[in-house]
């Protein structure tokens, strides 16, 4: 029965079949590529015609049978050429697409379909390209399209969505397509999926940014330097270390410009070592852009490139100026301490020396007196000489006594002592100095002052220190200003206050702060221990010591001592 049907019927069935197939296909892909509000259903007819165009790629010669023979040959050749170009078009490894000015996709190759994750051109051809582009890039694409239809060639990277809903990054190169009249009819876009490379470059950028942030925020100076010492890179911490306001004040300059010459050689050696692949560190003094000097400690290591060659010296440098200064101070203090130990050993020596000297002195003194006695009235000149010998030996005795008093080590033994007696004994001691320098001492000791509870020798030491400081202060002044005042009076019912004042220039503010600090002295040969020891002694007795100027009296040192309860 079937072969009885005529051609027309066969054609009709074929047509129907094709319609059915197309419809089924349409139903399967009812959701068009995303972001499109209008679902455009292409008319079956148009679709068909276009579909038939692509299906003709298999060298099927589709020629109108009704053409004359000559024309048939020309048409055949034309068809062959068209097939070739079509083949090239379809097999291109990148997506090639033709797009009209309003964005309608006119043509797309297989690669393009694959990119869009679809197998059917019907889903794409006739669609607006803008349905495929992620909203953020639509404007950019439109702009590109506009430029192309103006005759430009443009490259754009954008994100689009495939028919399956996947987002992909694309790079497209677009050119205008002209017809025979040189009118731009379409836009040809060659597009490549750069999703992977884009991801990588994003990661790289993130990584680079992280490293950059670390470099920028690192609180210590980080720098890169070449083999000649030229600074290639320096982070903000380093710039501020050098007191540089601008990046260009430092980068490009040679590190040796910032270093004192004595360290240059060692630094050169360090650089050479690093460029050979080693690591090293050193301390040096840097001269910052404001001229200041600071101590720095640098740790250097080689920076290698991809091939493993040393491309730069990477150094982290920290400011150790504070530490260096502390070390200096510590060294000075140790030296001073050693000196004081020697002095105290000397004190011991002085003590034993005094003891030893005493014996011969005792003999000499007695001999001289005996000789004087023997000579009585015999020779006048001899008398005189012997008197002198006796006098000098007594003087030597007194010196020894004074040394021993001063150096004597006793466990502090507080007793009830009167202010007047200690003041007077110290004044006796400085009498020769006072007289020689024509200094007047004004004593103002309140009558019937209660006794203080204190160790006599130690308080004498404090007074000795204050009074000799006062003497030194006035000794350079004109004679009428060489006046020292020493006062002792009630401070309260429980305290006696001692004041040693001298006219003359006041002590400056910054020195006042340091007055009682150990090792602080403004004298060339000073030890700087006097006031510090005085303070220790006074405070150990429960008193206070301080400095203040008083109008009329000049500069005064005050200290208090507790009243003795033994009276």
């Amino acid at each position, binding site marked *: 029965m079937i072969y009885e049907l005529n051609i027309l019927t066969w054609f009709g069935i074929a047509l129907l079949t094709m319609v059915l197939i197309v419809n089924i296909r349409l139903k399967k892909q009812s959701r068009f590529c995303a972001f499109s509000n209008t679902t455009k259903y292409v008319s079956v007819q148009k679709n068909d015609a276009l579909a038939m165009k692509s299906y003709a790629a298999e060298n099927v010669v589709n020629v109108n049978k009704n053409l004359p023979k000559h024309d048939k040959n020309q048409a055949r050749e034309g068809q062959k050429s068209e097939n070739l170009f079509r083949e090239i078009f379809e097999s291109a490894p990148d997506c090639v697409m033709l797009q009209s000015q309003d964005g309608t996709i006119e043509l797309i190759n297989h690669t393009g379909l694959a990119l869009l994750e679809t197998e059917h051109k019907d889903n794409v051809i006739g669609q607006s390209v803008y349905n495929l582009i992620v909203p953020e890039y639509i404007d950019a694409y439109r702009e590109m399209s506009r430029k192309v239809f103006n005759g430009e060639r443009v490259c754009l990277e954008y994100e689009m969505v495939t028919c399956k809903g996947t987002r992909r990054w694309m790079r497209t190169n677009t050119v205008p397509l002209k017809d025979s009249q040189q009118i731009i009819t379409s836009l040809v876009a060659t597009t490549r999926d750069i999703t992977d490379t884009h991801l990588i470059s994003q990661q790289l950028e993130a990584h680079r940014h992280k490293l950059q942030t670390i470099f920028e925020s690192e609180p210590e100076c980080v720098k890169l330097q070449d083999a000649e010492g030229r600074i290639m890179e320096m982070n903000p911490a380093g710039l501020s270390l050098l007191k540089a306001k601008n990046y260009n004040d430092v980068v490009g300059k040679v590190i040796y410009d910032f270093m004192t010459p004595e360290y240059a050689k060692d630094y050169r050696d360090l650089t050479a070592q690093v460029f050979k692949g080693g690591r090293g560190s050193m301390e040096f003094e840097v001269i910052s852009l404001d001229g200041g000097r600071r101590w720095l400690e640098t740790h250097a290591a080689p920076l290698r490139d991809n091939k493993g060659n040393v491309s730069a010296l990477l150094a982290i440098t920290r400011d150790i100026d504070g530490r260096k200064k502390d070390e200096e101070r510590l060294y000075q203090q140790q030296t001073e301490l050693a000196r004081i130990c020697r002095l105290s050993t000397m004190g011991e020596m002085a003590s034993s020396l005094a003891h030893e000297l005493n014996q011969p002195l*005792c003999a000499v003194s007695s001999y001289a007196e005996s000789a004087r006695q023997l000579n009585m009235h015999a020779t006048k000149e001899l008398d005189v000489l012997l008197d002198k010998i006796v006098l000098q030996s007594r003087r030597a005795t007194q010196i020894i006594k004074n040394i021993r008093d001063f150096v004597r080590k006793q466990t502090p033994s507080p007793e009830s002592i009167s202010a007047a007696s200690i003041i007077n004994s110290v004044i006796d001691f400085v009498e020769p100095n006072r007289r020689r320098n024509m200094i007047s001492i004004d004593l103002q000791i309140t009558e019937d002052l209660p006794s203080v509870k204190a160790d006599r020798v130690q308080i004498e030491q404090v007074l000795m220190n204050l009074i000799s400081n006062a003497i030194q202060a006035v000794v350079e002044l004109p004679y009428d200003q060489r006046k020292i005042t020493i006062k002792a009076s009630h401070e309260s019912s429980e305290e006696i206050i001692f004041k040693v004042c001298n006219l003359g220039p006041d002590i400056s503010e910054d020195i006042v702060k340091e007055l009682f600090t150990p090792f602080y002295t403004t004298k060339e040969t000073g030890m700087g221990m006097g006031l510090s020891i005085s303070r220790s002694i006074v405070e150990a007795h429960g008193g206070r010591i301080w400095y203040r100027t008083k109008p009329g009296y000049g500069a005064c040192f005050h200290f208090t001592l507790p009243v003795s309860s033994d009276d």
Partner: protein
Amino acid sequence: MVPVSISHCRYRVMIESQSIYIVDDDAAVRDALSILVKSVNLDAKEYSSADQFLAEYNPQHPGCLITDVYMPGIDGVELQKRLVDMGSQIPMIIMSGHGDIPLAVNMIRNGALDFIEKPFSNHQMLEHIQQALTLDNERRSTAIKSNQSQKYYATLTPREKEVLEYLVSGVSNKVIAAKMAISPRTIETHRANVLRKMNSESVVSLVQKMSHVHRTSN
């Protein structure tokens, strides 16, 4: 002018052969002291150590001692202790180096006469020696007297001893007679005997003598 003039007359030898004993480890100091002592006609004996001195010392021999405090071997403190142990009352003058004052003070507490600091003045040293010798004389004569009195006392009869006690307490013969239930005449006889035996001219001197005498009963 330096006051070094000393009158020789003040330093008369009071008892035969008084000696000044000088103990010091320093030769020059010893020598200077010797010269000083001899210059006033006193006898000086030098010793370089306390040991040497103790080996030769005779407590019967009158004199005084001048010694240093710090010496190698036995020091001044130990020397004093040993002298006390052997019952010697020899007056001590201590020479102190400036640093030994606390020690010297202790020695004074333990019976030394005085201390003088080195270097000393001759004048002061001689004054101390004077004091020391005077003291030594007094002690000796007191000792002698006390010895003698003791001997005399031993010769008294018990009755006489009894009367002696009453006499020394200051009561009259009459009262003694009453207390002893003897006649006053007998008391008078006893009184005379006691005075005679005790070699005293009066009850007063008797009293003095009795202060040195240990009472014993026969």
